[in-house]
C-alpha cells in the first residue's frame, strides 16, 4: 500500500459500527449484507459495494471454515467510515490462528482440499480492496483488516 493510501485510512472517523455474531455459516450472508448496508451511507457505486460484499464474505468464511473449524465461537466485525471516502473493515476471530500467514495468502493455498475450497479467499480480498492486513497468532486468533477507498462521486 502506498504511503498516501495509509494516510487516507488514518483520517477522521465519520461513523462506526460493531457487529458480533456466531461463527455459523448462515451468518456469511448476514455479515456481508450488514457491512454493505452500513457502507451504503457513503453512496458507493454498485461495483464497489459488490467488491466489499465479496471481500467480507471471504474473510467471514475463513473465520468459520478455518478459524473455528469444528469448534464454535464469535466473529467480531468493526466497520469504520473515514474522511476521504475510506472504509476500514476489521474482521476478527478467536480461533486457531494461522501458523504461516504469508503461505496462507498465496493463491490456491488451502488446508481444506476435501471441502472443495478454492484457496482463492485472500486473493479475492486483495483484488477487491485497496489493502489487506492480517494479524494472526496460533491459538489466539486472526484479525483481517480490509481497506477500501471509494471513488469520488460527481455531484448530481
Amino acid at each position: 500500500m502506498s504511503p498516501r493510501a495509509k494516510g487516507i485510512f488514518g483520517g477522521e472517523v465519520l461513523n462506526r459500527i460493531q457487529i458480533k455474531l456466531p461463527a455459523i455459516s448462515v451468518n456469511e450472508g448476514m455479515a456481508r449484507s450488514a457491512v454493505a448496508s452500513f457502507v451504503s451511507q457513503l453512496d458507493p457505486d454498485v461495483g464497489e459495494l459488490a467488491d466489499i460484499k465479496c471481500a467480507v464474505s471471504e474473510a467471514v468464511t475463513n473465520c468459520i471454515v478455518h478459524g473455528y473449524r469444528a469448534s464454535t465461537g464469535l466473529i467480531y466485525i468493526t466497520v469504520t467510515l473515514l474522511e476521504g471516502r475510506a472504509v476500514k473493515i476489521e474482521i476478527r476471530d478467536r480461533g486457531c490462528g494461522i501458523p504461516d500467514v504469508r503461505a496462507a495468502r498465496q493463491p490456491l493455498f488451502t488446508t481444506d482440499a476435501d471441502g472443495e475450497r478454492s484457496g482463492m479467499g485472500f486473493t479475492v480480498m486483495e483484488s477487491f480492496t485497496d489493502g489487506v492486513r492480517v494479524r494472526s497468532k496460533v491459538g489466539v486468533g486472526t484479525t483481517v483488516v480490509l481497506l477500501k477507498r471509494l471513488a469520488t462521486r460527481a455531484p448530481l
Partner: protein
Amino acid sequence: MTHKADLVCDTAGEQMLVRVRGEIDHHTAADIRNGIDGALFEKRPRRLIMDMSAVTFMDSSGLGLIMGRLSVIRQLGGELVVQDPSEAISRIITLAGMERAIDIRYTDGERRTQQKTAARRRRKASRTEGKVAK
C-alpha cells in the same frame, strides 16, 4: 432478508441444464453441490450446463463449486459449460484463471463481446499488478 440459493435441473437427451438461483457462498454451496451431483449421477449426461444468469452473488466458494462439478462431469466422461455469468461472477472466474479451464458461454451475443473485452482488460490490468493466479 434471505440469503438462499436453489436450482432447477432439466435433462434433455444427453444434456443437463442446471439453473442456479440466488447467492452462492460457503453456506449455500453444499446444497447446490449435493443437488447437482445427485442429478448428475442419476442422469449421467454428456454435458452439464450451469446457467448462472440468476446468481446474484458469488464468492470463492462458487469457484470451488464450479471446479468440483468440472471434476465430477469429467469422471462421467462429459463436459461442463458455464452459461451467462454476470460481470461480477466472470470477474472472479478470471481472477482465478479459471476461464482457461472451463467453457464459458453467453446466450446473448452482444453481451458476450462486451464481457470478453472487459475480461481481457482486467487480465491485462492484473498482470501489470502481478496479481494474477497461476
